[in-house]
C-alpha cells in the first residue's frame, strides 16, 4: 500500500463530484445542516461545496470559533493585564485582533505593550524562563481541542516550580451552545456536522445527549472537502433510513471515547464554570472551564482580581454576529458586511477570525471552484 497523500486524496475533484451525485440521488427531504465549527464553514466556502449539493441542503453557520465568541469584557481583561510593564501577555492566533470595548491586544502591542502571539502554548514556558522578573500571563483560548495543551503547560509549570506563570482561562465547550441554540428554537436545524478535532480529544460521545434530546443526527466530520461531502451523504442516509445517530466520519483519528489521557489532564486542573458569556449569544450555563480552586494561585482572574473590570458590554450596534452565531442570519444579511466591516478593519469578531463566517464569506463568497 502506498503512502497516503492526505491533501491530494481528500481534495480530489472526482471523488467530490461522485459523492455529490449520490447525495442528489438519495436525498428525500430538505435538510438544514449546522456546521458548528468555522473550520467547516471555511471548507464549504473555499471549495464551493454548496453549489455541488442539491437545493434541499442548506448550511447554517454555528458558534464554533473561540475567537468569534470571545466577549469584549474578556478582551478588556487582557488589555488591562498588559498595561503593567512587569507583565507579559501571551496568546494564540487571531485573538489579538478581536476588538474589545475600546481597543484590541494588537493595538496595545503597537503602542509598545508586552503582548506576544505564539503558535504553541509550549512557548509560554520558554518566555517565562527567559523573563524571570516578569509575570507571564497566558490568555488561554479554544474549545476542547486546545484545553489539554493548557493543562499540560500548567502541569509543567507546577513540576518545574516556576513562580511567574499565570493563566487567564477562556476555554469553552462545544455541546452547551448547541443545546442553547436548540432550546431557543429560533434557528431551524435538522442535523449537525461536528468538528473532528474537538472529538479527537473528547470522543464522539459528547453529542449523544444532543441526538437523544433533539433527534438531530450529528456526524463528526473531517475538514477536507471530501470529508464534508461524505458527512452530508451520511446525514442524508440517516434521514432516508429513519435513523438519528452520532456517526463518526473522521475515523482516521476520532473514536467514541477520545483521548482519555488528555481528558484526565483537563479534569485534573479544570472545572466547569456556572456560566460564561458568549459574544452575541449571551450567558450560557456550564459552557466554559476555569482553573480548580486548589490551583487558584495560578489563576489570573483570582490573582489580578482587583484590577479586572467586570461589567458586561454590548456588541457594536450594527454587527449581527450574534444572530449569525445563533444560526438565524447569514453574513450577507449584515448591512455593513464588506463595507464598513472588512477583515482589515473588523467591527465584529466573525470578521476577525480567519474561520469566522463573515471572513469566509468575504474571502470566498464569489468563488465557484467546482462548477460543473
Amino acid at each position, binding site marked *: 500500500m502506498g503512502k497516503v497523500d492526505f491533501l491530494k486524496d481528500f481534495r480530489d475533484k472526482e471523488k467530490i463530484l461522485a459523492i455529490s451525485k449520490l447525495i442528489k440521488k438519495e436525498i428525500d427531504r430538505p435538510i438544514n445542516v449546522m456546521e458548528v465549527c468555522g473550520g467547516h464553514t471555511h471548507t464549504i466556502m473555499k471549495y464551493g461545496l454548496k453549489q455541488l449539493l442539491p437545493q434541499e441542503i442548506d448550511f447554517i453557520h454555528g458558534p464554533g470559533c473561540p475567537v468569534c465568541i470571545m466577549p469584549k469584557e474578556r478582551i478588556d481583561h487582557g488589555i488591562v493585564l498588559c498595561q503593567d510593564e512587569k507583565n507579559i501577555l501571551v496568546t494564540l492566533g487571531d485573538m489579538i485582533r478581536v476588538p474589545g470595548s475600546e481597543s484590541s491586544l494588537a493595538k496595545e502591542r503597537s503602542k509598545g505593550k508586552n503582548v506576544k502571539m505564539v503558535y504553541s502554548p509550549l512557548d509560554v514556558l520558554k518566555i517565562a524562563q527567559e523573563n524571570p522578573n516578569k509575570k507571564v500571563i497566558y490568555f488561554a483560548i479554544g474549545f476542547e481541542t*486546545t484545553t489539554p495543551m493548557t493543562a499540560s503547560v500548567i502541569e509543567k509549570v507546577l513540576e518545574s516550580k516556576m513562580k511567574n506563570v499565570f493563566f487567564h482561562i477562556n476555554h469553552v465547550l462545544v455541546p452547551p451552545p448547541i443545546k442553547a441554540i436548540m432550546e431557543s428554537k429560533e434557528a431551524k436545524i435538522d442535523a449537525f456536522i461536528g468538528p473532528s478535532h474537538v472529538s479527537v480529544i473528547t470522543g464522539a460521545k459528547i453529542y449523544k445527549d444532543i441526538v437523544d434530546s433533539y433527534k438531530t443526527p450529528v456526524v463528526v466530520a473531517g475538514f477536507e472537502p471530501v470529508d464534508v461531502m461524505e458527512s452530508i451523504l451520511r446525514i442524508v442516509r440517516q434521514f432516508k433510513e429513519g435513523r438519528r445517530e452520532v456517526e463518526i466520519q473522521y475515523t482516521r483519528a476520532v473514536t467514541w471515547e477520545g483521548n482519555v489521557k488528555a481528558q484526565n489532564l483537563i479534569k485534573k486542573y479544570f472545572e466547569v464554570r456556572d456560566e460564561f458569556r458568549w459574544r452575541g449569544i449571551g450567558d450560557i450555563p456550564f459552557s466554559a472551564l476555569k482553573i480548580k480552586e486548589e490551583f487558584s494561585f495560578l489563576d489570573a482572574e483570582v490573582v489580578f482580581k482587583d484590577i479586572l473590570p467586570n461589567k458586561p458590554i454590548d456588541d457594536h450596534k450594527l454587527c449581527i454576529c450574534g444572530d449569525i452565531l445563533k444560526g438565524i442570519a447569514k453574513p450577507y444579511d449584515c448591512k455593513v458586511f464588506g463595507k464598513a466591516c472588512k477583515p482589515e478593519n473588523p467591527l465584529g469578531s466573525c470578521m476577525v477570525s480567519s474561520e469566522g463566517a463573515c471572513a469566509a464569506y468575504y474571502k470566498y463568497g464569489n468563488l465557484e471552484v467546482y462548477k460543473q
Partner: protein
Amino acid sequence: MCLSIPSRVEEIFPDETAIVDTMGVKRKVSLHLLPEPVDVGDYVLIHVGYAITKMNEEDALESLKIYEEIVKHLEEESGE
C-alpha cells in the same frame, strides 16, 4: 484555529518531544498528550504544537478505498 495537520514522526527524544514532518516542514512538538507510544514513521495529528492522536493510516486508506468504489459505481451506472 482548531485545525490540525497530519504529520509524520521523524525523530523521538527522551523528554516527550519529537521532530515531525508536516508537508515538508520539520518542527518540534510535544508528545505529552499522546495516550499511546509512537514510533518513527507513524502519522500523528498535530494541534498547536502538540501531537493529539496517532492517525490511523489503515483507516485513512480504507476510506480512500470506499471513495474509489463510489467513483467506479457511478461510472458503471452512467456508462462513462
